[in-house]
């Protein structure tokens, strides 16, 4: 399978900075996969995200989206249709006074036919569980609801890739659960490629693949079970392990034999029950 995103040895330095934010990063992302990107503050996560739909273009190296070079301005519109972004602050991403108008904003700008807009808006709102709120005023919604409207706005463009840059940082636990469930179902049910940037280890455990960035490069790359079994390496990179892994490590140190791949609370509880019985 051809990668939907191909990143070939890119570097990027912000104007006025003497240190590269990305420093020779190479990465392929396969279509339909769910990738979580972790890393300390300043490791280059958000800079990487902004390269995925040509908000930034590399100082050196190349990014290809569905085979299209992001530095070629002629590709810009096609790239932005394929890769949608959702950012941290839900209040900065809403443009209309009614939820369904907000979701329709991008396809209207793309010149999509009205009946097709109607179909896409309804489908997108249903997909994120916000259809019943379609006539509501966005500013009266909760944070998690606003983020789901922002995701629906991206879905209405019919993208192939959804990039979420710390979408839950400002949300309460219920809002976090809602947004993560929406992102996961888009990947699993609709085959959309999801790239989730996060500071919360527990948000990464359901991904197919976890990338850890450090100083603008990929330091670790693997399945969640492989990555989170490396406690020392993660701590050296200013990260931590999910609490399930911390518990299993503690129990194993006391002589139990539990698999470090039991990452969800449910899998962890099941493994403990099996070991005790």
């Amino acid at each position, binding site marked *: 399978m051809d990668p939907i995103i191909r990143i070939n040895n890119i570097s990027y330095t912000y104007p006025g900075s003497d240190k590269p934010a990305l420093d020779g990063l190479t990465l392929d992302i396969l279509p339909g996969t769910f990738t979580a990107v972790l890393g*300390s503050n300043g490791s280059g996560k958000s800079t990487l995200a902004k390269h995925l739909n040509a908000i930034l273009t590399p100082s050196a190296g190349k990014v290809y989206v569905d085979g299209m070079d992001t530095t070629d301005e002629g590709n810009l519109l096609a790239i932005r249709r394929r890769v949608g972004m959702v950012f941290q602050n839900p209040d900065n991403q809403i443009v209309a006074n009614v939820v369904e108008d907000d979701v329709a904003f991008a396809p209207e700008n793309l010149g999509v036919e009205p009946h097709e807009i109607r179909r896409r808006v309804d489908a997108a709102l249903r997909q994120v569980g916000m259809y019943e709120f379609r006539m509501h005023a966005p500013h009266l919604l909760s944070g*998690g609801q606003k983020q789901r409207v922002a995701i629906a706005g991206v879905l209405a463009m019919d993208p192939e890739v959804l990039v979420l840059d*710390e979408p839950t940082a400002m949300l309460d636990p219920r*809002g976090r659960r809602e947004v993560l469930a929406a992102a996961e179902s888009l990947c699993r049910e609709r085959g959309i490629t999801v790239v989730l940037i996060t500071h919360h280890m527990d948000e990464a455990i359901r991904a197919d693949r976890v990338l850890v960035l450090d100083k603008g490069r990929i330091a670790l790359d693997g399945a969640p079970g492989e990555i989170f079994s490396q406690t020392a390496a993660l701590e050296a990179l200013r*990260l*931590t392990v*999910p609490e399930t892994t911390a*518990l299993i490590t503690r129990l194993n140190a006391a002589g139990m034999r539990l698999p470090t791949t039991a990452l969800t*609370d449910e899998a962890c509880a099941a493994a403990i029950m099996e070991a005790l*019985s």
Partner: protein
Amino acid sequence: MSLIELRGLTHIYSQGTPFEKTAIDGISLTIDAGQTVALIGHTGSGKSTLISHLNALLKPSGGTVLLDGQDIFASKASIRAARFRVGVVFQYPEYQLFEETVFADIAYGPKNLKLDEPEIDRRVREAAAFVGLDAGVFDRSPLELSGGQKRRAAIAGVLAMEPDVLVLDEPTAGLDPAGREDLLARLFRWHEIRGATILLVTHDMSIANRCERLVVMAEGKIVLDGAPEEVFAHDGQLLSIGLDLPAPAHIAKLLRERGLDLPAGIYTLDRLAEAILALRGKGAGPC
């Protein structure tokens, strides 16, 4: 005597208009000097509105706020006194840095207290050291700092006021795990050394469970108030108002549901590991 006392505190936004909204609804709460309290609740539960009354940024629609038994809204002088004694760090405080240098920014509060230069200098240096901000950045513009350093500078500006009560709204939002850990450790050390009261507003249960007392808000009211083990025992209620359990408490709940005989009140990793290991070899599994 309680340091802070809220009596029937109510706040109604846009009162008398069609947009009228009761943000907090008849809250009574006392906090003793030196307590560490986590105020938790879903978005829109009234947490931010509540803390804005503690240093008189908002005036109650009903009820009173007492500091050392005195109504903080009694006079201009008492309002001013409350602003100096209760330091509030709002969410993403780094957007509120405005002076030309980091030093001047941290010194802004102490200057308003009309302290002399050597005392201002001492306070700025101590506050910066407390939050882990190197004196080498004092002459730089706050805009040149990294995100984490800006956060520290903003918090140092409030610590330099040497308040009796430190209120922080989601102080670790957006920080990486090591940054989160470091900042929390420093804040709790400040509490230990100065004996100051800390009120942490958060919806991160792994932060909340480090405080000695949890106050849970929903729909403008206090719905739970107690030690972490008491509050986290109400797992169904916490989940239904949009909150979470700390992971160890959630895993303990799942283990109990699967038939494991774990003691109540487990919410830390240490206690959960201990309890599981105690059951090992006893044939404690379900049969």
